[in-house]
C-alpha cells in the first residue's frame, strides 16, 4: 500500500489560484481527513489526487512515482462521491461490479466479490434494484460498495455523508469507523464537518483559503492549535475569543479584558515576556469554563446568561461578558436562571493565547 506525497501542489482556474502550494505526506494505511470550510479547496485537492483535475503546478507522488500526468485508472484508486455518482441505468450489482467487468475478471470471481461486499454493507436484498429505487442511505452504501469491490490501494471520499440526514449520518460515521478497522488501506477523506474529522482521522489536515493551516492527530490539533482559525474550527461549541491587554503588577502578568482579569501562569508569563506583546487574543473552550461561584476573581470570569440551549445532559449557555459573547458548556441540572450573573473558573493551563497581528498561537 502506497505512500502518497503532495509536493507544492497548486491549482488555478483561469487566472485565479485556488490552491496555494499544498505539501502533504500520507503514510501507508493511514486515514487522512482533509477538513475545512466550504470553498477552501478540499475537493480540488482530492480530485487532483484522483486525476479528475489537472495539476497546475507541483507534483503528486504515489510510492515515489510522479503521477500527475497519469489517467485516473493508472493510479489504482477508488473514490466515493458526494452525490454518490451511481450509474442510473445499472442495478446495484452491476454498479458495484462495473470496474471488475471492465477488467474482464471471471464471472465467478465478480459474483463472489459483489456478494461479499454486499454482505458487509447489508445490500444483499437490493442487488437487483436500480439506484432510483433506493433510499439515500442505501445509495450511499452502494457508492461505498462500488469502491470496496475493487482492490484499490487507496480510497478517496469526497464528503460521502453530507447528503444524509443527521441520524443516518451518525450511524454511517460509526460504520465507517468500524470498516476502517477492517480495511487496511490508505484513505483520504474530505469533509467540512469537524466531528467527522475528529472521529475518523488518524491525521487531520485543516485547510482554509487554499492553504494547509495545520496537520496532526485529532488530539494534537485540539490541544495545540497553531492559529486562531484551527482553534476556532475544531470543537463544538466553538472556542471563545476575548481580547485582552497585558498588564504587570508586582512582577505578575495579568490578562485584562472587558469584564475579566486573569492571572497568568508561569508558562504563559515566560512566553508573553519573550514575545513582548501589549495585546493578545485569549481563547477558551466552552468546556474549560467550570461553574464555580466561589472562585477567586483573578482566575474566573463573570457571565450574564442570555440563552440556554438544552441538549440533554449538557446545556450550552450563551452568555454575555461585558458586551462580548461567551459560550459555556454546563451540566443541565445546574440551577440557573436567565439573566443571572454566574462565575466560571478558568484553569490557565487550558487557555490559548494568540498574537493579534498574525493570529498565530503563542507558545
Amino acid at each position, binding site marked *: 500500500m502506497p505512500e502518497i506525497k503532495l509536493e507544492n501542489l497548486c491549482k488555478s482556474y483561469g487566472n485565479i489560484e485556488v490552491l496555494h502550494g499544498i505539501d502533504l505526506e500520507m503514510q501507508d494505511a493511514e486515514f487522512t481527513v482533509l477538513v475545512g470550510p466550504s470553498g477552501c479547496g478540499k475537493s480540488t485537492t482530492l480530485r487532483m489526487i*484522483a*486525476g*479528475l483535475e489537472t495539476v497546475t503546478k507541483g507534483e503528486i507522488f504515489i510510492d515515489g512515482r510522479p503521477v500527475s500526468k497519469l*489517467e*485516473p*485508472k493508472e493510479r489504482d*484508486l*477508488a*473514490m466515493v*462521491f*458526494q*452525490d*454518490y*455518482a*451511481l*450509474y*442510473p*441505468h445499472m*442495478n446495484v450489482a452491476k454498479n458495484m461490479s*462495473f*470496474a471488475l467487468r*471492465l*477488467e474482464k475478471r471471471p464471472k465467478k470471481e465478480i459474483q463472489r466479490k459483489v456478494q461479499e461486499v454486499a454482505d458487509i454493507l447489508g445490500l*444483499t*436484498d437490493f*442487488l*437487483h*434494484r436500480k439506484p432510483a429505487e433506493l433510499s439515500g442511505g442505501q445509495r450511499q452504501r452502494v457508492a461505498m460498495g*462500488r469502491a470496496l469491490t*475493487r482492490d484499490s490501494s487507496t480510497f478517496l471520499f469526497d464528503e460521502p455523508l453530507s447528503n444524509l440526514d443527521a441520524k443516518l449520518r451518525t450511524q454511517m460515521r460509526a460504520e465507517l469507523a468500524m470498516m476502517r478497522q477492517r480495511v487496511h488501506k490508505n484513505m483520504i477523506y474530505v469533509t467540512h464537518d469537524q466531528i467527522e474529522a475528529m472521529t475518523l482521522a488518524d491525521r487531520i489536515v485543516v485547510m482554509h483559503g487554499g492553504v494547509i493551516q495545520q496537520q496532526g492527530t485529532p488530539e494534537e490539533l485540539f490541544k495545540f492549535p497553531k492559529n486562531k482559525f484551527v482553534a476556532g474550527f475544531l470543537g463544538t461549541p466553538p472556542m471563545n475569543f476575548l481580547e485582552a491587554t497585558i498588564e504587570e503588577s508586582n512582577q505578575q502578568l495579568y490578562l485584562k479584558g472587558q469584564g475579566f482579569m486573569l492571572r497568568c501562569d508561569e508558562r504563559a508569563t515566560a512566553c508573553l515576556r519573550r514575545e513582548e506583546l501589549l495585546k493578545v487574543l485569549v481563547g477558551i473552550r466552552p468546556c474549560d469554563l467550570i461553574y464555580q461561584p466561589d472562585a477567586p476573581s483573578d482566575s474566573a470570569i463573570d457571565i450574564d446568561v442570555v440563552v440556554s440551549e438544552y441538549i440533554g445532559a449538557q446545556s450550552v449557555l450563551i452568555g454575555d461578558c461585558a458586551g462580548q459573547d461567551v459560550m459555556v458548556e454546563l451540566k443541565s441540572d445546574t440551577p440557573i436562571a436567565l439573566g443571572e450573573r454566574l462565575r466560571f473558573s478558568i484553569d490557565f493551563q487550558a487557555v490559548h493565547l494568540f498574537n493579534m497581528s498574525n493570529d498565530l498561537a503563542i507558545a
Partner: protein
Amino acid sequence: MSTAKLNRLSPYLFLAPAFLVMVLALLYPLGYMIYGSFRDWNPSQALGESTFVGLKNYYTLWHDPNFRESVVVTLKFAISVVTIEMFIGVGLALLLDRNLRGMSLLRTLFILPMMIAPVVVGLIWKYMYHPTLGVFNDTLRALGMEPVEWLSQHALLSIIIADIWQWTPFIFILALAALQSLPRSALEAARIDGATGWQQIIHIKLPLMMPVLIVTCLLRLIDAFKVLEVILVMTAGGPGLTTEIMALRISRTATEFRELGVAAAMSNYLLMMLLLLTVLMLTYNRWIEYRANKAQRAAEEAL
C-alpha cells in the same frame, strides 16, 4: 352547485379552450380527410357533391404498382437517411462534446444547414449535382475521375445525401444536449473505475442518452416519411418513379390527376404507417421496461 363538485370540474374547465383548439385545428381536418377518402372527389366539387364509393380508393391503391413503388421508395429513403443521420449526428456529438477553443463556433456552423429553407436547399444541391456545371463533377474531373450523372443515374442516392446534409444537425444538437445533461459525476466515477473513452461511451453515455435518442429517431422518421420540398425541387420524383416518395405522389394525385379522394386515401395509408411505427416503438420501450421489471421481480423472489 357544491364547491366540491366545482373543484372536481375545474380541471376540465381549464382544459376546455385547449381541447377546443385541438378539435378545430387537428381533429376537424383529420376527419375531413378520412371522410374524403371514401369518396370519388374532384377538386371542382364541394365535398358534399362527391359520390360515396366506400373502400374503392383504398382498394385501388393497394393494387396500384405505382403507389406500391412510391411506398418502397419512401421506406428506402426514410430508413437509410435516418439510420445514417443517427450515426453521424450522435458520432459528431460524442466527438464535439468537449471544451476546446472555437468549439461553440464550430457547433453553430454545424447546425446551419437546418436553418436554410428546404426549397433553397433543394436548389443549392440541384446546382451542385449539375452534370456539367456542378461542383461535384468539377471536383471529380479535377481529380481525373469520370463525372457522375448524379440526379439521373443515382437519383435516390443523391437525395439521400442532400437530406443527410440537411438533417444530421438536428440529431447532432439533440444528442449534444442529451450528452451535456448527463450526470458529470457518473462519468467521473466511470473514469475512476477504469473505463476508457470508448467504454464510457458504450457503457455509460449511450445507455443514458437512449431515451432522448429514441424520441429523436422517431421525430426524424416521421419527418423523413413526409419530406417533400427538397425532392420536389431536385428531381420532382424522377427519373421515372425512382424518387417519387409518398408525399410527392399525394401532391401529384391531388393536383395533376385531380383525384382528391385517392390522395386522401393515400394520406391515410401514410398516417397509418406512421402510427404503426410510433406504436411499435412505444411498445418496444414498454416491453424493455416490462422485461427489466420481470427480471427484477424474479430475482427478488429467488432470494
